């Protein structure tokens, strides 16, 4: 039977080699447009295969090469083969490679790879002596790396156990690697374990059973068992035996190593059950089993994470929604903690979401979230209070003391569309206070302005921050816009225009030491508008400014405003308005008299100026500087006057003496 198998095997190899040569011959012809003899192709194959086998040891991981050649795309296949060849062999290999697009790279790669496998099989056919010679010739003697690169670990192990000894297997189980210092070092398997493996493989061979072998995976399992603190030495030995047997019989996979590292109860019993379940290959049942065993640890982690989170929240003095999110972000490593809100039941729960490290499946643990909700409420209330304070502060300051720093022409992030009645914001943050209103209505009155403050809250639907807005109440709007109106008197003003004399009723009022005059119905090309000037009557029209309630470009469409609202605007912003009039002096519209502005635009413009308080302080600086200079001047004058008086008194005394004489 065995002889038959051997003969079959030889035939298969011959057939494979013949196919490889045939394929390479076709590839050669495709590229070079001429034939190459079979014996030359065989020689080329031998050179390339030998070089590939020789070079494998230089690489970090044999399995990586196998992966790139067998499981990756053209680029990496080509790269893997080329990286194993010297310059001479590269030139030879490239003579067989035609166009990339025709799929030749895959064929080309596998031909050389299989040729190397055939060469290794030939070597193994030579028995243990041939193998030992081969091992001697290797760069580092790391035959395991060569075997794993060509997926031949089972064949190598079978030979070593059948014809070799435990020392051979011991050398096969070690690996060479490059340390952090850049030196080649050796990592070996304990002899006790090598002995167990040897005996078990021998046993399988005697029963004519196939084995599965992957040195790295086996060592991962052994390392996991060795490091396991929950097992006694005796239990470790028992698990080792079960593990090797199950592994060689292909009745276990890499999840064994992951599970044994994990913190589960009754570890020995658990691992035994796992091995038994894996044998049955019922993966659904196996996943359920793993989830059941690992859940207590995840529950413990969930509670720990939750407690850590609450502890950090407790330590914050002034908790805000942003701080809650920042603390959560810092805690999160691979797990997530959030509130889930069910609209139907109106119930929220705190969920700990995690990925099971062994099954890779995502799952949830529900925690009692009363504490978390409590802190969310505190944070949200703090945010609301802050917004309230901002509104109260704005109300107290009044409209004249709010300065817009972010204009209405920019999209304000928190408001997704441009709104026409937004005057502007104080600052560029999403939670900056902004002003709304100040629009002309049908009665040509300027509407009240109100302040709105956006603020952050932690939303019910999960762990996101939302923005809500708080507006001034009606009472606050009233106070915000409130101002003491001046007494307004009227008189008739007779004035001259280019086309003759006219009389108008003019309203006069005083604000902050300035005298203002305002009149309606100044006309231009059938349109009319309101005119404002300060100082003497005769300052009209040269130093006046026109105010309109119409946005039209056309002069005939201009209309004035309700005077009371202009007076109110000036009373709310006396210093700003005075500055505006100063800036306007000398400017003219197309009709050549004075500038014309829309009342809304005037308000928006002055809202961007320094506040009344700031302007008042600027005035105070000017005044005090003037007073200080005046005082200094008078002090000098006093000294001089005193000097002069002394001189006079001396002269008086001298005069008095002469008279006395």
């Amino acid at each position, binding site marked *: 039977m065995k002889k038959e198998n051997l003969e079959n095997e030889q035939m298969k190899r011959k057939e494979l080699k013949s196919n490889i040569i045939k394929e390479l011959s076709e590839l050669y012809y495709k590229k070079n447009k001429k034939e190459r003899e079979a014996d030359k192709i065989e020689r080329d194959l031998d050179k390339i295969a030998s070089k590939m086998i020789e070079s494998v040891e230089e690489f970090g991981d044999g399995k990586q090469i196998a992966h790139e050649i067998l499981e990756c795309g053209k680029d990496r296949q080509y790269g893997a083969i080329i990286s194993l060849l010297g310059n001479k062999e590269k030139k030879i290999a490239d003579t067989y490679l035609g166009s990339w697009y025709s799929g030749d790279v895959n064929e080309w790669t596998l031909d050389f790879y299989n040729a190397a496998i055939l060469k290794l099989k030939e070597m193994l056919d030579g028995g243990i002596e041939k193998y030992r010679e081969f091992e001697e010739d290797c760069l580092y003697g790391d035959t395991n790396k060569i075997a794993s690169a060509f997926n031949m670990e089972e064949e190598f192990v079978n030979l070593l156990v059948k014809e070799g000894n435990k020392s051979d297997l011991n050398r096969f189980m070690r690996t060479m690697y490059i340390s952090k210092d850049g030196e080649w070092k050796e990592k070996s398997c304990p002899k006790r374990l090598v002995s167990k493996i040897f005996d078990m493989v021998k046993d399988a061979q005697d029963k004519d059973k196939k084995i599965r072998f992957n040195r790295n995976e086996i060592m991962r399992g052994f390392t996991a068992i060795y490091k396991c603190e929950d097992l006694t030495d005796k239990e470790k030995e028992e698990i080792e035996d079960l593990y090797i047997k199950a592994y060689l019989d292909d009745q276990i996979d890499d999840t064994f190593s992951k599970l044994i590292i994990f913190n589960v109860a009754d570890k020995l019993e658990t691992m035994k059950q796992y091995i038994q379940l894996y044998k049955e290959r019922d993966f659904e049942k196996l996943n359920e089993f793993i989830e059941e065993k690992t859940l207590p640890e995840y529950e413990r982690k969930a509670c720990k994470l939750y407690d850590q989170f609450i502890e950090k929240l407790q330590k914050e003095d002034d908790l805000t929604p942003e701080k809650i999110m920042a603390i959560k972000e810092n805690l999160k490593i691979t797990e997530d903690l959030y509130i889930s809100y069910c609209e139907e039941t109106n119930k929220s729960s705190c969920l700990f979401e995690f990925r099971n490290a062994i099954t890779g499946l995502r799952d949830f643990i529900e925690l009692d979230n009363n504490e978390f909700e409590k802190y969310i409420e505190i944070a949200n209330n703090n945010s609301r209070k802050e917004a309230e304070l901002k509104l109260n502060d704005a109300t107290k300051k009044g409209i004249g003391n709010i300065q817009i720093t972010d204009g209405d022409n920019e999209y304000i992030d928190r408001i997704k569309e441009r709104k026409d009645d937004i005057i502007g914001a104080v600052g560029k943050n999403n939670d900056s206070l902004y002003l709304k209103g100040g629009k002309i209505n049908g009665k040509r009155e300027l509407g009240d302005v109100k302040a709105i403050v956006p603020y952050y809250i932690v939303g019910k639907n999960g762990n996101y921050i939302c923005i809500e807005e708080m507006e001034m109440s009606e009472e606050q709007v009233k106070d915000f816009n409130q101002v003491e109106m001046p007494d307004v008197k009227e008189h008739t003003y007779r004035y001259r225009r280019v086309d003759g004399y006219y009389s108008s009723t003019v309203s006069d009022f005083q604000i902050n030491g300035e005298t203002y005059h305002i009149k309606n119905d100044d006309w231009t090309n059938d349109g009319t508008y309101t005119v404002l000037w300060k100082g003497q009557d005769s300052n009209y029209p040269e130093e006046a400014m026109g105010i309109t309630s119409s946005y039209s470009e056309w002069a005939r469409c201009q209309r004035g405003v309700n005077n009371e609202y202009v007076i109110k605007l000036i009373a709310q912003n006396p210093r700003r308005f005075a500055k505006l009039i100063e800036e306007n002096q000398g400017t003219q519209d197309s009709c050549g008299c004075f500038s014309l502005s829309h009342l809304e635009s005037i308000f928006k413009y002055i809202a961007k100026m320094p506040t009344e308080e700031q302007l*008042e*302080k*600027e005035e*105070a*600086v*000017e*005044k*005090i*500087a003037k*007073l*200080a*200079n*005046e*005082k*200094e001047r*008078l*002090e000098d*004058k*006093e000294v001089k*006057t*005193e000097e*002069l*008086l002394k001189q*006079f*008194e001396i002269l*008086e005394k001298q*005069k008095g003496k002469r008279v006395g004489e």
Partner: protein
Amino acid sequence: MDVSNEKREKFVTKLRQEDYENKELLIKVQQVIKESGNSKEYISKIIKKLNKEQILELRKLYEKDIERLNTKINYDKRKMMSLKSEW
């Protein structure tokens, strides 16, 4: 009082609002302003620390001083005139 620029800066930072109710300190402020050459920049730094009432107090102090000086100067002038007229 010979106060260097550094000392003046320290003076401004140490000012507390309630101190301005103390007239003696207002007098010190006047002296320091004088030492700075009545500089608007320096005056502005001081004004920023004050509220309305306190700025008013400082102004009144200057106005009183100016009134007092004007009175003294006028008195001395009248005395000189009377002496002159006797000759």
